[in-house]
C-alpha cells in the first residue's frame, strides 16, 4: 500500500495529530520510540500518513524513554518518545528524571483524556504535567490544536538549547482529533550560547599562569566541546580529569589523562584534586559523588568554574573565578596565548599516583569488564546500568571520543543500559553498541529483547555481569552495615539468561571462569547480529578505589581490603558520623 505523502496532505484534512507529525518531520525527527494506548490513538492513526518518521514500538514506556535517551546521548540530537495517558505517561517518569539529571535533550509526547474530562479522574487520567513539573525543563498541556506546531517547536528548542533537558508535551485526545487551522512552523533557531567576557578570560589565564599544581576537570557539559577542551588541555599541558559524565571528552590515551574523580575515581585523579593549587572545571556540577566531603574538596585550590548554567557555579564548591560560558567558547579563548606548563615535580607526583589503585587480577567482575572493554573500538558505544559493573566500566574503559559512553550518572537508573544501548544502536547502525549490565538491572528492562528481535537490530551486544547479587548495595552492606546482606540476593531466582535470550531469538554465550572468557567474548562480538554474553562471577569483590560517603577524596580506600583479615572497616564509624553531621549542617 502506498502512503500519501505528508507534504501533500491537504490542509483541510489536517488534524492536531497530523500537525504533530508534520512538525516533528519538519524538525528532522526520523525516529520516535513509543507505546500506544487509548488517549494517544489519534496520534498513532495519523502516524500512518507520515512514513518519513519511523516509530519503534518498545515493550514498556520506560524502554521507550531510555531508548530515546540513548539516541540523544549518542547523537546529541533530540530523542523523542511517545506514551499514552495515565500509566503510559507515568511509566516515562523515571526516564524523564534521568534525562533531567544528565541533561539529555528529550521530547516526550503524551496523550491525555479529552479536555472536558480533565480534572474529573477520568479513565487513565493522570496529571502528568503536574507529576513531571520538577523533572522536566519545561512542560505543556496543549489546549488549542492550532498552537500545537508552535508548542512542539518551542519544546524542541528548549530541550536542545542551553543546558539541554527533557520537555514534555501533553496533548488531550480531542485536541489530537480536532481540525487544525493553524500554521505549520519552521524549526526555531538555536539561540547563541553565552561566551565569556574577555576580562574573565584574562583573569582565568592569570590564575593558570601562577599555578604550580594545576588540574583540569571536564564534565558531561563538555561532551559537545571535546575538540576544544582537548586542544586547550594540550596547549597548556594540563593534567586532565574527566568525570563519570565527562568520559570521552578528553582522549584517554593522552598521557595528560588522570582518569575519573570521586567515589570510585582513580587514585591519581582524587589525589591531584586534593593537592591542586588551581582547579579549572568545565561543564560539571560537582556532584556529591565527585566531591566527597565538600569542605575538603580541593582544599588548596583556587577554583575556576566554567559552566553554561549560572546556577551551578558556586552551588556546591566555593568558586574563585566564575566563568559563565559555553565550554567550547571558553576553551577556545583560553587556548590562545597558552603557555605550556613545565612542572616536573607535579608530573612526577602524578605519575606515581597513576601506578596505584590496581584492580584484583583474580577471577571476578573486574577481570570480566576489563576484557570486554579492552575490545572496544574507538567508535563503539558503551552503555551501562548502575552499580559495580558501571563503576568498573568507568574505571577500565578507555574512550577516545565523546558521546561513546552512555551511562546514567545523576539519577543512577537501573534498567537504563540496555534500552539506551538499543536506542543508540538504532541511531548508529554502523557501530557496535555494547551494553554492560548487572543481573539485577538487566531484569528491569529485559523485555526490550523483543524490540531487538522485532526490528532485527544487529549491533547490540549485551554483557551481563552476573554475581547473583545487587552488588553495589551488597558492597555497602559489607562495609557500612556489618555484612547484614538484607534483600540483595538474586541468585536463587535469576532466570537462565541464555534461555531468556533464546526465547526472544537472541543468541547467547556464557563464561564462568577466566579460561572461558576470551573465547566467549570473541564469539559474542564476532557473531553477525545482536547477542548476549553472561559472565558468571563471584560475589565477594567490591569496587575500589572507594571514597566512603562523607569522607574526603584523599581518604579513599585505594585497594580492596583483604577478605581474610577480621572485618574492620577503616574509620568508617567516624566517617558515617561525618555524613550525619554534614546532613545536619545542611539543614
Amino acid at each position, binding site marked *: 500500500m502506498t502512503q500519501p505523502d505528508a507534504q501533500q496532505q491537504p490542509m483541510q484534512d489536517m488534524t492536531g495529530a497530523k500537525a504533530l507529525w508534520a512538525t516533528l518531520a519538519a524538525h528532522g525527527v526520523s525516529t520516535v520510540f513509543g507505546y500506544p494506548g487509548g488517549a494517544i490513538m489519534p496520534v498513532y492513526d495519523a502516524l500512518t500518513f507520515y512514513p518519513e518518521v519511523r516509530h519503534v514500538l518498545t515493550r514498556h514506556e520506560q524502554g521507550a524513554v531510555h531508548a530515546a535517551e540513548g539516541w540523544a546521548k549518542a547523537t546529541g540530537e533530540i530523542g523523542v518518545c511517545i506514551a499514552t495517558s495515565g500509566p503510559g505517561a507515568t511509566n516515562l517518569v523515571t526516564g524523564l528524571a534521568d534525562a533531567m539529571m544528565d541533561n539529555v535533550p528529550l521530547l516526550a509526547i503524551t496523550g491525555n483524556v479529552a479536555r472536558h474530562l480533565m480534572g474529573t479522574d477520568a479513565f487513565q487520567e493522570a496529571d502528568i504535567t503536574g507529576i513531571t513539573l*520538577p523533572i522536566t*525543563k519545561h512542560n505543556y498541556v496543549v489546549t488549542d490544536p492550532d498552537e500545537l506546531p*508552535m*508548542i512542539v517547536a518551542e519544546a524542541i*528548542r*528548549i530541550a536542545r*538549547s542551553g543546558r539541554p533537558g527533557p520537555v514534555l508535551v501533553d496533548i488531550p485526545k480531542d485536541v489530537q482529533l480536532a481540525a487544525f487551522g493553524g500554521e505549520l512552523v519552521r524549526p526555531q533557531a*538555536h*539561540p547563541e550560547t*553565552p561566551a565569556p567576557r574577555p576580562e574573565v578570560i584574562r583573569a582565568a589565564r592569570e590564575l593558570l599562569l601562577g599555578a604550580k599544581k594545576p588540574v583540569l576537570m571536564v564534565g558531561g557539559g563538555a561532551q559537545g566541546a571535546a575538540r576544544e577542551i582537548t586542544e586547550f588541555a594540550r596547549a597548556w599541558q594540563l593534567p586532565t580529569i574527566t568525570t563519570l559524565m565527562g568520559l570521552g571528552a578528553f582522549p584517554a590515551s593522552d598521557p595528560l589523562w588522570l582518569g575519573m574523580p570521586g567515589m570510585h575515581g582513580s587514585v591519581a585523579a582524587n589525589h591531584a584534586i586534593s593537592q591542586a593549587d588551581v582547579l579549572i572545571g568545565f561543564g560539571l556540577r560537582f556532584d556529591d559523588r565527585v566531591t566527597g566531603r565538600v569542605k575538603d574538596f580541593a582544599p588548596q585550590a583556587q577554583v575556576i568554574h566554567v559552566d553554561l548554567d549560572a546556577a551551578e557555579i558556586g552551588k556546591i564548591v566555593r568558586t574563585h573565578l566564575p566563568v559563565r560560558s559555553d565550554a567550547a567558547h571558553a576553551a577556545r579563548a583560553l587556548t590562545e596565548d597558552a603557555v605550556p606548563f613545565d612542572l616536573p615535580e607535579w608530573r612526577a607526583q602524578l605519575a606515581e599516583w597513576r601506578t596505584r589503585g590496581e584492580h584484583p587480577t583474580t577471577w571476578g567482575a573486574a577481570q570480566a569488564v576489563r576484557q570486554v572493554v579492552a575490545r572496544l573500538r574507538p567508535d563503539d558505544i558503551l552503555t551501562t546500568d548502575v552499580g559495580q559493573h558501571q563503576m568498573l566500566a568507568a574505571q577500565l574503559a578507555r574512550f577516545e571520543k565523546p558521546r561513546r559512553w552512555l551511562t546514567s550518572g545523576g539519577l543512577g537508573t537501573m534498567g537504563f543500559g540496555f534500552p539506551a544501548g538499543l536506542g543508540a544502536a538504532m541511531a548508529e547502525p554502523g557501530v557496535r553498541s555494547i551494553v554492560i549490565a548487572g543481573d539485577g538491572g538487566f531484569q528491569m528492562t529485559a523485555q526490550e529483547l523483543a524490540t531487538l528481535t522485532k526490528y532485527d537490530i544487529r549491533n547490540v551486544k549485551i554483557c551481563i555481569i552476573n554475581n547473583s547479587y545487587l552488588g553495589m548495595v551488597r558492597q555497602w552492606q559489607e562495609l557500612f552495615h556489618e555484612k547484614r546482606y538484607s534483600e540483595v540476593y538474586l541468585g536463587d531466582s535469576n532466570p537462565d539468561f541464555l534461555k531468556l535470550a533464546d526465547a526472544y531469538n537472541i543468541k547467547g554465550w556464557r563464561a564462568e571462569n577466566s579460561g572461558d572468557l576470551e573465547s566467549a567474548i570473541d564469539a559474542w562480538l564476532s557473531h553477525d547480529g545482536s547477542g548476549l554474553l553472561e559472565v558468571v562471577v563471584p560475589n565477594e569483590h567490591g569496587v575500589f578505589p572507594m571514597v566512603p560517603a562523607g569522607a574526603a577524596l584523599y581518604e579513599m580506600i585505594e585497594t580492596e581490603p583483604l577478605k581474610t583479615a577480621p572485618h574492620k572497616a577503616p574509620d568508617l564509624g567516624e566517617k558515617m558520623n561525618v555524613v550525619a553531621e554534614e546532613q545536619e549542617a545542611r539543614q
Partner: protein
Amino acid sequence: MTSPVQPVPDHLVSALVRDEPRVLTRITSLFGRRGYNIKSLSVGTTEMPGVSRMTFVVSGERGVVEQAMKQLDKLHDVVKIIDHSLEKYVDRELVLVKVRVENSERRIEIRQMAEDFRARIVDVGRHALTFEVTGDEGKITAFIEQMRPFGILETMRTGRIALTRGSNADIASHIYHDGQTETLEPVYSSAPREGKAREVNNLF
C-alpha cells in the same frame, strides 16, 4: 563552639513571569523542593498583558537567596528577576487587623492609636474594629505590636510588594524589545529567550 544565633536575613526579590498555567506552582514547587524559605509571596497583573509580577520575601543567607534566584531564572516562564538589594526600591504591604473592643474607653484608645499610624477603619463592629494599614514592614509590625495588648482577633497581610525607585522600569527595559512588545506578546515566542533573560543577577 557556641555562637549567638544570627537571625536569618530577609531578601526582597521580584519576578516578572508569563501568565501561563501552573506558573505559580512551578515557582513554589521549585522553592519547596530545593528547600528555600518563602516568607511572603504576592502576585498581581502588570500593565503588560500576559505578564505578572511577583514579589517574594525569601529568608536565608545571601548565597542561598542568590542560588534561589538563579534557579528561578532558569524556569521558562520567568522573564526577569529583580534583586531589590542591588538597587533602591519602594515597598509596601497592606494589612487588615481586627482588634477586640472591650468597652467604649478602649474604643477611644484604639482609635487614637490607629490615627497615629494613619490606619483606616474599614469595618466597625460592636466588639471589634477592623483596620487597614499600609506601609513598609517596620510600620506594620509596629502597628500590630501596639494593637496586641487590646487583643487581636485576626490579621491578614498581603505580603510585601516592591518597585525599583526612579524612572527605571523593569518591564519597559526588558520586555519591550526594540520598542516593540513582540518578545512577549505571542505566548509561545519564537525569539530565543536564553541569553537575554535578565542581566541584573548575572554577576559574571
